[in-house]
């Protein structure tokens, strides 16, 4: 552990903690749709992720938000190479790992760990906690000083579980505790990057906060970078240094937390922020209401993908896809893909 910081006074998140750890360029995943009378041929594709660029620096937490079907989970799976990208590049510490074979990927994979949404489904019910956490370490030939069991007990303590529970089975734990087991398993690999896919959305409210605090503590103390995938805007704001907003497989807006939450430029970011309810009866701001549902990713709208639900859409939005750029009025690193962005002086919705 490089720096020990107490939980009560975490360090202010710096914009750049280190060099780029993960660079993603033009990342694309199309799931082919096959049909045909006798012989199946491809008749279309679900464009789950369609040309996504982002960078995560060492020790940085990037939040990925969006509604269901926007491709945020697919992006997480592509980065860990659980899915094979259709196009684009993934660079990890400068190495292109887009199509690296399993053997050469193994050492990198151990540095990129994943935490899943469903703590019930992601733990083998027939294995003890000890076996679950030791397993990946043994596969990757990690020999912690003092042996596996000692290390597991340390890890259990780190994630706030009783080290005596080494020999228990997952069903003996509550949902929040199981999520902690999943986190301990990921930590055993001494990861540099953790992909957390909706890590708290299956948990009860009071337990969510426990797990978020734990992840934040690990982030600060161990300097682990995070790709934090969630639909809950408040949790993403709480956790991430930078935030990317996805819609139908594309990034609509990306920037520092304050840029995204205080001066969002993309109408979709505005709508998303104003739709999220706050537990405050005086929160009587004017609300933007999006009509209808998200269109199908099989046949996404031409031009700007958000135009069918956008109140500012004009002819240009139909014909021309807006590039993700640092548009006039944005701070450095704040990129927006919109032809008719919101006024930068508009206060937070």
């Amino acid at each position, binding site marked *: 552990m490089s720096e020990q910081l107490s939980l009560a006074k975490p360090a202010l998140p710096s914009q750049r903690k280190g060099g780029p750890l993960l660079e993603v360029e033009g990342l694309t995943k199309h799931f082919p749709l096959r049909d045909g009378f006798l012989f199946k041929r491809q008749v279309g594709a679900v464009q789950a992720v369609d040309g996504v660029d982002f960078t995560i620096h060492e020790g940085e937490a990037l939040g990925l938000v969006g509604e269901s079907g926007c491709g945020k989970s697919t992006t997480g799976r592509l980065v860990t190479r659980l899915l094979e990208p259709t196009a684009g590049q993934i660079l990890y510490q400068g190495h292109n790992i887009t199509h690296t074979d399993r053997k050469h990927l193994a050492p990198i994979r151990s540095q990129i760990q994943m935490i899943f949404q469903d703590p019930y489904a992601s733990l083998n019910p027939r294995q003890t906690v000890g076996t679950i956490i030791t397993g990946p370490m043994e596969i990757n030939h990690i020999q912690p000083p003092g042996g596996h069991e000692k290390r597991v007990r340390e890890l259990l303590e780190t994630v706030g579980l009783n080290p005596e529970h080494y020999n228990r089975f997952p069903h003996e734990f509550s949902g929040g505790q199981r999520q902690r087991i999943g986190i301990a398993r990921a930590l055993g690999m001494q990861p540099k990057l953790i992909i957390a896919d909706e890590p708290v959305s299956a948990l009860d409210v009071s*337990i969510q906060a426990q797990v978020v605090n734990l992840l934040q503590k690990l982030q600060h103390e161990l300097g682990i970078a995070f790709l934090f995938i969630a639909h809950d805007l408040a949790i993403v704001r709480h956790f991430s240094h930078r935030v990317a907003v996805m819609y139908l497989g594309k990034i609509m807006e990306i920037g520092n937390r304050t840029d995204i939450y205080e001066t969002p430029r993309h109408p979709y970011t505005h709508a998303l922020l104003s739709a999220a309810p706050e537990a405050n009866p005086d929160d009587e701001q004017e609300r933007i209401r*999006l009509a209808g549902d998200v269109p199908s990713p099989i046949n996404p709208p031409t031009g700007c993908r958000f135009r069918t639900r956008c109140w500012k859409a004009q002819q240009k939005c139909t014909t021309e896809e807006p590039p993700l750029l640092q548009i006039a009025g944005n701070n450095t690193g704040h990129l927006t893909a919109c032809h008719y962005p919101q006024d930068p002086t508009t206060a937070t919705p």
Partner: protein
Amino acid sequence: MPFLSVHDLSVQFATEDGIVKAVDGLSFDVERGRTLGIVGESGSGKSVTNLAVLGLHNPRNTAITGEIVLNGHELTGAPQRTLEKLRGNTMAMIFQDSLSALSPYYTVGRQIAEPFRKHTGASRKAARERAVEMLRRVGIPQPELRVDDYPHQFSGGMRQRAVIALALVCDPQLLIADEPTTALDVTVQAQILDLLKQLQQETGTAIIFITHDLGVVARICDDVLVMYAGRCVERGTVRDILTTPRHPYAWGLLSSVPRRKAPVDAPLRPIPGTPPSLLKPPTGCPFHPRCEFREYVGDTRCQDERPMLTLDSGRGAACHLPAEQQKSIFAEQIRPLLGRS
């Protein structure tokens, strides 16, 4: 007189491991035209309470005591025939998961028309027209075409609208909505909440809204009941509960959720521990094992004595902390975390 009055309701399930006290001595009223939010985490008894009101519990393993009075009629122990006449008619329910809440085998229109025909005796044709009208009212485009679709042909948001149309088809006077927006995206959730509010203004329906999301509560509820371990721990108006909550559990719920206006790097203040087992609920105050303020009360009172909920014009908390102390602790320790002045 309140439209629905629940008094000292207890619901117990017989399970292989023993008796589960899912609801324990719960009382509340719902007025016409108002929305009561029932807030709690999984296992707090909020859904069970409402299944009991509708008489939809499994009679084989469930024991219900107390009074449930709907518009002057006692429902506990009423024969199924009486309840069947009320269900879907005077009182209706919206379920959480719209995909599993609709039968995959029948068209959306038929499922909406069915209760209308049963309760009003309308003809097949009139009921179909009513179904189209209901789909239009909940904002489904081209309702005369979509009425013949099956649920799997609808998107998630549209399906939830169809479930609402189904619940409202007989103009119920009491609507129970069990986490109706939890499975939806925020933009669709906002649409559905607006829709419910608008329909309530048109019809004056009393609504019970079950949720764990205090943000949703702020948007739709008039009154709030906070449940913990099958009991009501706090009641009041939505403003009372969200701006000056008195019960430590309500404080925990508020301070464990990050909010957009709170200081960014303040850690969340979670509720320690895990919800109790209802097979063996804690003695005294059910929240005492997780309560950080029990030493303010002193001795072992919280463990020994069950705090009673006494209401003063609809407002009260079941907590041994003296009222003054509740106010000062909230003002000094909790409110600063919420990012509000």
